[in-house]
């Protein structure tokens, strides 16, 4: 199922924010066609790690390889161009813009008139309308409405819809089911599995090990900026992994070193 060389390879990654050591010597491989559950308590460094992968933070030291090539420059634009789509937890939508404008922010479709790029409003509206209907937003929400009007669940749906629509090679989901109803949550989880089955790498971040254990091929646990466990879901049960988290990873760290 997994290809021979990892799609994303992280080697000895360190990240400092001033005196704060946010990531400590993290090394991990991610393969295409895998669904990875990235788990850990609040402040464990999950979000920080994926923010490096999607180009928001540049690491202090260490290397990241994408598809075998070393990543030299970190910027979200480069990551998105490479096909890494990220559903961020707290950022990603501008309240003051319409759904359609948010949907295409940074990669706006244009129609050229005399060589001048004008936004292709018809296409922006049509595609984003289709996605918001698919994700079951209220009928009175239109693609021209500002994101400010949306509820937490609807905002999340817009972000997920956007990532799925532009799916390329990697989809990273940071706590994707926050704010969602039970039905919406099921929908997101099905999507994550579908994307994986289409051969994409899906990194699913959550602190709910039981939820992700059912979906994932492999679970990576982080604690205090370090990777403390990396095990396939067939080799460890959710209960065992939860114990690792509860112990702060200390016990398993020794086991892993063997």
């Amino acid at each position, binding site marked *: 199922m997994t290809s021979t060389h990892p799609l994303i390879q992280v080697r000895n990654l360190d990240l400092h924010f001033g005196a704060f050591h946010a990531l400590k010597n993290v090394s991990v491989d991610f393969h295409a066609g895998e669904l990875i559950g990235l788990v850990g308590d609040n402040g464990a460094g999950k979000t920080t790690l994926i923010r490096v992968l999607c180009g928001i933070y540049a690491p202090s030291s260490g290397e990241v390889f994408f598809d075998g090539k070393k990543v030299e420059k970190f910027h979200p634009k480069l990551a998105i161009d490479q096909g890494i789509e990220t559903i961020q937890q707290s*950022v990603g939508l501008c309240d003051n813009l319409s759904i359609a404008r948010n949907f295409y922010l940074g990669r706006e479709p244009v129609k050229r008139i005399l060589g001048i*790029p004008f936004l292709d409003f018809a296409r922006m509206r049509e595609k984003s309308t289709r996605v918001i209907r698919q994700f079951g937003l209220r009928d009175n929400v239109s693609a021209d409405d500002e994101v400010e009007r949306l509820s937490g669940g609807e905002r999340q749906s817009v972000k997920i819809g956007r990532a799925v629509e532009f799916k390329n090679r990697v989809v990273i989901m940071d706590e994707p089911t926050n704010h969602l109803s039970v039905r919406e949550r099921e929908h997101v989880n099905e999507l994550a599995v579908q994307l994986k089955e289409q051969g994409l790498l899906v990194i699913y971040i959550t602190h709910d090990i039981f939820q992700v254990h059912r979906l994932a091929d492999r679970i990576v646990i982080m604690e205090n900026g370090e990777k403390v466990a990396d095990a396939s879901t067939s080799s460890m049960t959710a209960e065992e992994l939860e114990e690792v988290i509860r112990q702060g990873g200390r016990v398993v760290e020794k086991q892993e070193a063997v």
Partner: protein
Amino acid sequence: MALSAAKPLIRRHTELGIFLIGAVLIVLFATTSDGKWANLFNLATILQVTATLGLMSLGVALVIGTGEIDISVGSTFGMGALTYLWLAAQVDPSLAAVAAIAVGAAIGLFNGLLVTKTGTPSLIITLGTLMIFRGIAIALTEGFSFSIPYAGRNGWTYFLLGGGDFLRFNTALYWLIAVTIILMAVLKAMPFGNRLLAVGGSAESAHSRGVRVDRIKLTTFILCGMLAAFAGTLEAGKLGFADGSMGRLMELQAIASCVLGGCLLAGGRISLPGALMGAFVLSSIQSYLVVTGVRPQWFILILGLIVVAAAYGDRSLRQWALRK
């Protein structure tokens, strides 16, 4: 209720407030000035002032749109005027105008680089450059003024750059109309405008979507500098002379125009027509005070009071519109 039907409209278009205030003031000024305010000649004067202040306000509005501010525009205006006058005496006015705009672009670049590279708040950076370039303007003129001799005040390029009237209005007004149309198209219908407003709405979110936030901010600072210097050029073309104090305090009027016009200082929501209406209202008030013979000592005080009242009225209107 007919009135409550207007609420969503006012909520969506924050600039409606200033248009309403403008309409009220026009009626008030026209009826209380004995015909001295509401005549074509005076209106043309008001529109000439509106044109230069308006061009400056458009640039400031773009910077405000990204969540930054540029208060150095008054000095940029002066530098543009001086550059134009100095060169127009030697080369064709069109080349002099290009040079003046280039000076404005350079000042904008300087502001933008300082803000984006150092991360220092734009308020304090541009307050500093406001003083720096005012200082340079005063030093350059050494207390005298730059002027174009009357013999040089002709030719169609001089005429086009604020130096004459077309259909009874100063040519600056036509520049304002053209620039407004272009900028509105850029802001509403082009990717750059989408990204500009995204940066003001949430720089973090825009960054996470791959928008080059610093580049967008830098571009708006450059545009703002160019527009302020161009406004200075048109004013210099109109007057034919300028000294080191040219454009002094105009930065405050430009910011007031933007805020009255519905631009949110926090960024992300701006209205170019609103900013222009703000500039028109400010120029109208000034003109009213002049034609009704208010003693100069009281002028600034009364202008300030009207601005405060207008801002309060606008805010009340918006809050009314937000109430369910």
